């Protein structure tokens, strides 16, 4: 199903990230020796207990921060700074409060110097696709959380990045809105077939959406296991949960994850996040 010749492949080799702890004379290792590969057009989720460095990993792939050690390549090219072929959907909706829906969605095109006429057409197309036609002139504070998330998604997709990184994008939404958004995301993904790396702490969400799921350990974050998800596509996130295979996958992965979650929790209780 996933072509190997597609662009948008990500390779992580021995990726490590440490931060100095200013008041203590030591370093905090957020991510340690992480290696895995994401094929072009593949949908991969990363799950792990909170504080395991999932978001750090995305920041490294996006080139927002330089890593301490290891190598990340996008289609064979090492990451050095922010890559224009990449999109990022943030946990909090990082859309611009002083811009309207249309201005927000059009912003990356403006930054990229796309001429006004074709930019306008693409913005209208994406606003229609996310179902916000009629809301073009609204400001973010006038929209619901789900609508803002849609704007953020359209803003990322409008310039058709080859790789889309998503950092717990639907975490703040209520369950119903969340399921709707997940289905919309799958539909968009099926249509455009971009590489998606999706960070979440919700195992069900990860299984329902992905081709493969990377399970991380409690901090310092390492790869504990990688599971292929052989559930049929196209999927509906609300219905796929009743597939017999889903339950089996969930159980296996949860056994892996629960120890890490407990470990992560105990450490955070003791304040021993190093």
């Amino acid at each position, binding site marked *: 199903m996933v072509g190997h010749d597609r662009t948008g492949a990500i390779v992580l080799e021995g990726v490590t990230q440490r931060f100095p702890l200013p008041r203590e004379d030591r370093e905090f290792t957020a991510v340690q020796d992480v290696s895995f590969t994401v094929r072009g057009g593949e949908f991969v989720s990363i799950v792990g207990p909170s504080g395991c460095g999932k978001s750090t990993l995305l920041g490294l792939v996006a080139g927002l921060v330089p890593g301490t050690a290891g190598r990340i390549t996008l289609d064979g090219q090492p990451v050095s700074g922010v890559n224009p072929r990449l*999109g990022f959907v943030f946990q909090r909706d990082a859309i611009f409060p002083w811009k309207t829906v249309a201005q927000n969605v059009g912003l990356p095109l403006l930054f990229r110097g796309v001429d006004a006429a074709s930019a306008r057409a693409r913005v209208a197309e994406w606003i229609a696709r996310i179902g916000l036609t009629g809301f073009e002139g609204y400001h973010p504070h006038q929209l619901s959380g789900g609508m803002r998330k849609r704007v953020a998604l359209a803003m990322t997709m409008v310039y058709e990045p080859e790789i889309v990184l998503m950092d717990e994008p639907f975490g703040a939404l209520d369950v119903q809105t969340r399921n709707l958004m997940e289905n919309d995301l799958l539909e968009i993904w099926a249509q455009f077939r971009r590489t998606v790396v999706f960070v979440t702490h919700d195992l069900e969400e990860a299984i329902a959406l992905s081709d493969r799921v990377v399970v991380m350990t409690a901090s310092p974050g390492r790869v504990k296991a990688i599971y292929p998800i052989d559930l049929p596509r196209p999927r509906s996130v609300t219905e796929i949960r009743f597939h017999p295979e889903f339950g089996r996958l969930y159980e296996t992965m949860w056994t892996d994850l629960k120890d890490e979650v407990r470990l992560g929790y105990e450490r955070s209780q003791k304040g021993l996040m190093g």
Partner: protein
Amino acid sequence: MSGVKRVSWAEIRLWRAGLLVAFLALWEVATRRGWIDKFFVSQPTVLATQIAEWVWSGFIFRHLWVTMQETIIGFLLGTLLGVVVGFLFAHWEKLAYIFDPLMVALNAMPRVVLAPLFILWFGLGLLSKVVMVISLVFFVVFFSTYTGIREVDRDLVNNARILGATQRHMIRHVLLPSALTWIFSSLRTSVGFALIGAVVGEYLGSHEGMGYVISYAESMFNSTGVLAGLLVLMAAVIAIDVALKRLDTRFSYWKPARW
């Protein structure tokens, strides 16, 4: 305790008006009966007559206009300077580190004491008052611009970077709008400072403007003139404040109303 009652605005207004009238009446009666000497505190009816006379003859408008000119010119220049320097400092951290002690020291200095120096350097006319106003407005705007840019949402900056923003885009679409909310939130403070600067400057040395009117009346031991001048200034400040409140809501259209 759940004894919190909703306030009735009609009632509040009634109280306010009532207290004001009572105060004015007491003042009038006290000075008429000779409980207090009119020479020191004037009298409401005399004050009203004085202000009416000033308005009728147009005398007050000339002086008010001079003060407004100084306030507006100084305010605009001070704001511009504050925004530019705040921007530069936020952008080049080294600059901020180097000049930090100087900024703190200059800001700590009571500018009012500088007024005589400014008058000595820049004369009795408009320029010395404008400089005085700038010296007050600059710091308010500088500090809020600086904070506004330093405190900009990191996610927004990162998002803009990923969306392909150049340095110029970042300033135009992220940093400036973010700083603008801070600048606007300090606008009413800085306009107040601007007016104080202009009036103090005039008071200490000039031949026109509201500060001059008050200072002249004072030198004649004319308490009516001093109080009438103050009342006119007060009215001007209230008018400006109302206008600024309107402007603020216009420019903050994107903010949720409860902010």
